[in-house]
């Protein structure tokens, strides 16, 4: 095929398929073979994805889903949240995107537009194109070296489990393929430039630089080398395509798909069990009892370990690692899915599928019970997973199976549930004592006065725990001083049920939730304030499942607002260095990061510092997910680990916005024998202190 001659001054370019003019037919053949292998792999995987799992709708609201796909799938916002791995992945991904576009340009010109008489890879466009291709090729190469360095030299713990790397040959093969494509590509370019020697090719700066290394090689040898390398390049590239569905490269398909199908529900949402009466089994005891999407999730996992990096259970020596959990489910799925696919095929389109008998118990054998129960539901894994995997609902599903179906779980948690059943609080203190804290300070119940703006939902800790009662008192006094109209439910209030729900006792949770909703609705309440983030989250986001639609605020939101509006006066300086500990159920669950910090900054004299792990990457206190009520006998105690982090920040005081966190931090400080030097306090207590009104008469009382 004759081509236009290339020249300086607007006709710069290169001959596509230079030195490989007669390979086109062969190339097509090999490409076809590679695509066939790729297609077969994807088809087989597709059969496996479809083989098992309960139905779930994850393709509604296309507009929203496309937005998520573009933001986190294409532009990889979440991946970039971790700088080094973010850049590493970004270099490879975006570099490759550009290279693929480049190859597509080449192909389009060569096969389509040029035969029609339009060659567009010419002149300035060609030069810039050459520059970009080399630049992004180089970035891919840098990314690959960063990855090799990280995986095989730096060896961060998260690319393994308990100090042991979990590398597989696949990890290396993939990097070598990518690196191989780019390196051979540059070599081909260099040899072409060396032989054809056009004066403008310094724009292809990498190839041009390498071409200098061939000086002295005769053109015949160079052309032979070029031909050989051209084929190597081609085979690596086609091999890469064929290899995708059989390797971790499949994440190029599964991760964007997982982003597209991500949950659009509020963070931490658990779909309620609707049928208690006729179901034989509850929760997830077998793999096929997960939804198809929950199963698909595990196929999107790339073992990157971001989840593990901040998992409070993992980092304190418990066997749980969210990564391991997902990978173990995946391994089990790889074993089970083909059996299900075969059973489906055997049954035909109309026949009933004979579920292949499981050889082992998923909960207990595939997933160890210590792993299952170590989770604090802190949401770190889900918040930071760059593949949109939803770990926590899986854990709760399996806990539901252990609690509801098998009734086989920790005795201390059984006691907690009995307490919640009998006295509507996890401590099991007489329900009639729920409002005792409020008696002395003149807080009215809605039964006494229903015409108030806010219901203060006190919650169990605020009602029964000695320290919690002090927080409730401080907050009630703040509201009184600011003239906010509010009331409590008194003994009509019940446990919010969060610990029951997150500990797998959905039945108990729903009983408690429905009782509360009925009482709250009975008073026509519209706005609710909660001092406990667990109650706050449950009332705000979980109760709507059962018809409880309220405007729910956390007390830090209310206090921040009162300060902003000048309704409370913070006059007494509070000295000392404070570190604010983000409660998971405020931060990651409800994105309340600013208000507590704003409040603390508004207090005169108070100095605010940050612990290293904060905001969305904050470290759990250890009490979420019903862990508050369970023994912690493996590894280090999570609250002690968090206390040490506060000590590293040199904080004298730990400020919290959650009664569970408060208990955990107070205990942690005691455990570290730091009680002389450090303390923990709820923001309401700190604010009340700064208001300096303790000696003032409560409102409404005669002086």
């Amino acid at each position, binding site marked *: 095929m004759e081509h236009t001659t290339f020249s300086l001054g607007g006709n710069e370019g290169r001959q596509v398929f230079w030195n490989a003019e007669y390979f086109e037919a062969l190339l097509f053949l090999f490409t076809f073979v590679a695509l066939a292998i790729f297609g077969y792999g994807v088809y087989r995987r597709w059969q496996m994805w479809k083989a098992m799992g309960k139905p779930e709708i994850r393709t509604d609201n296309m507009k929203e889903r496309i937005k998520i796909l573009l933001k986190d799938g294409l532009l990889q916002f979440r991946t970039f949240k971790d700088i080094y791995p973010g850049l590493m992945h970004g270099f490879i991904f975006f570099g490759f995107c550009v290279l693929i576009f480049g190859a597509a340009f080449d192909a389009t010109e060569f096969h389509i537009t040029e035969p029609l008489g339009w060659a567009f890879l010419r002149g300035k466009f060609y030069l810039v194109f050459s520059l970009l291709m080399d630049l992004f090729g180089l970035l891919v190469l840098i990314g690959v070296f960063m990855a090799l360095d990280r995986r095989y030299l730096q060896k961060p713990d998260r690319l393994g489990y308990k100090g042991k790397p979990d590398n597989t040959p696949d990890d290396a093969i993939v990097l070598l393929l990518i690196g191989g494509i780019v390196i051979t590509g540059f070599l081909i370019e260099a040899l072409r430039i060396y032989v054809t020697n056009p004066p403008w090719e310094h724009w292809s700066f990498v190839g041009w630089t390498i071409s200098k290394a061939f000086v002295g090689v005769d053109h015949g040898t160079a052309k032979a080398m070029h031909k050989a390398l051209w084929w190597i390049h081609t085979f690596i590239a086609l091999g890469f395509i064929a290899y995708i569905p059989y390797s971790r490269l499949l994440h190029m398909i599964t991760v964007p798909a997982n982003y597209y199908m991500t949950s659009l529900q509020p963070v931490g949402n658990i779909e309620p069990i609707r049928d208690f009466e006729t179901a034989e089994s509850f929760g997830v005891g077998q793999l096929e009892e997960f939804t198809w999407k929950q199963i698909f999730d595990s196929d999107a996992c790339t073992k990157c370990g971001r989840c593990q990096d901040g998992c409070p259970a993992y980092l304190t020596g418990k066997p749980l690692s969210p990564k391991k959990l997902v990978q173990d489910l995946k391994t089990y799925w790889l074993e089970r899915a083909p059996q299900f696919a075969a059973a489906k095929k055997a049954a035909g389109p109309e026949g009933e599928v004979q579920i292949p008998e499981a050889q082992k118990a998923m909960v207990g054998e595939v997933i160890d019970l210590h792993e299952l129960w170590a989770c604090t539901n802190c949401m770190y894994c889900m918040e930071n997973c760059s593949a949109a995997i939803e770990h926590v609902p899986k854990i709760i599903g399996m806990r539901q199976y252990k609690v509801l179906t*098998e009734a086989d779980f920790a005795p201390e948690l059984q006691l907690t549930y009995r307490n919640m059943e009998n006295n509507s609080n996890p401590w099991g203190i007489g329900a009639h004592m729920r409002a005792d804290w409020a008696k002395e300070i003149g807080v009215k119940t809605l039964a006494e006065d229903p015409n108030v703006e806010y219901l203060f939902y006190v919650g169990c800790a605020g009602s029964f725990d000695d320290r919690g009662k002090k927080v409730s008192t401080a907050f009630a006094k703040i509201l009184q001083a600011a003239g906010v109209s509010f009331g409590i439910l008194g003994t009509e209030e019940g446990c919010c049920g969060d610990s029951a729900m997150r500990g797998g006792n959905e039945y108990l949770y729903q009983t408690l939730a429905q009782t509360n909703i009925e009482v709250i609705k009975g008073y026509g309440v519209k706005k609710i304030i909660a001092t406990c983030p667990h109650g706050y989250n449950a009332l705000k986001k979980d109760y709507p499942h059962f018809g409880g639609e309220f405007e729910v605020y956390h007390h830090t939101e209310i206090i921040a607002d009162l300060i902003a509006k000048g309704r409370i006066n913070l006059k007494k300086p509070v000295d000392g260095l404070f570190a604010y500990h983000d409660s998971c159920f405020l931060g990651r669950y409800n994105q309340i990061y600013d208000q507590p910090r704003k409040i603390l900054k508004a207090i005169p004299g108070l100095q605010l510092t940050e612990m290293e792990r904060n905001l969305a990457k904050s470290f759990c206190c250890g009490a979420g997910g019903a862990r508050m009520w369970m023994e912690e006998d493996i590894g280090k105690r999570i609250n002690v680990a968090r206390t040490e982090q506060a000590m590293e920040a040199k904080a004298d005081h730990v400020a919290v916005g959650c009664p569970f966190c408060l208990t955990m931090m107070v205990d942690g400080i005691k455990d570290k024998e730091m009680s002389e030097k450090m303390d923990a306090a709820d923001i309401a207590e700190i604010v009340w202190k700064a208001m300096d009104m303790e000696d003032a008469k409560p409102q409404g009382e005669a002086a």
Partner: protein
Amino acid sequence: MNIVACVKQVPDTEAQIRVKPDGSGIDDSGIKWVMNPYDEYGVEEALKLKEKFGGDVTIVSVGPARVVETIRTALAMGADKGIQIDDPALNSADAYTTAAALAAAIKGIPHDVIFCGQRAIDDDSGQVGSILAELLDLPQLTIVTKVDIEGTTVKVVKPIEGAQLLIESSLPCVITAQKGLNEPRYASLPGVMKAKKKPLDVKNAAALGVSTEGKAKVAKTTAPPSRPPGKIIDGADAAAKAAQVAKLLREEAKVI
């Protein structure tokens, strides 16, 4: 093996107990009713024997409509059927009458082992199990922390001050359960749902041919004397406070 477990419904240990103004008992409004914890050990042991030897567990309880919930709790744990003896005349029955009612109900059904709690936490009388055994003319093994059955013999462990007794008896017999016998199970949800459909017989005193006369009667219920309020000792320093304590102990409390 046919196993019977007798259960009593009692106020939750945390419930607020208010005595009726006329002293005729306690005001049961707002009280959370639960299964007597010692009876729970009996139910759990009955279920364990059923799991080991097969057979049936029957729950028997005396009390008004509200006790059905407690019977269902035992059924949810895994018992097979329930008998409720509901008669207004039995609502404030003494231990003898209660035992007689239970005996009459149990006589009508096959029984190899009968479990009772060693006492109920509400009236603390601790007699029903023993009277029941007498009325049925069966051996009684009381306050037991371990049960071992082989063939038609049962060996039980009964802790006493400073020692424990290993007692052997033939079956059938009455065993009263003490804390430590086992850890009662948490009912599974399928268990709770199935319990709603399990058979429950309701009988009254007349049908059982039981006299509701009784042998003893609670004459009056009064609240325990209220504790006098504590005293906070004031003083300039520790020594002054200690002196004050010593003075009060001598002059007011008259203990030194």
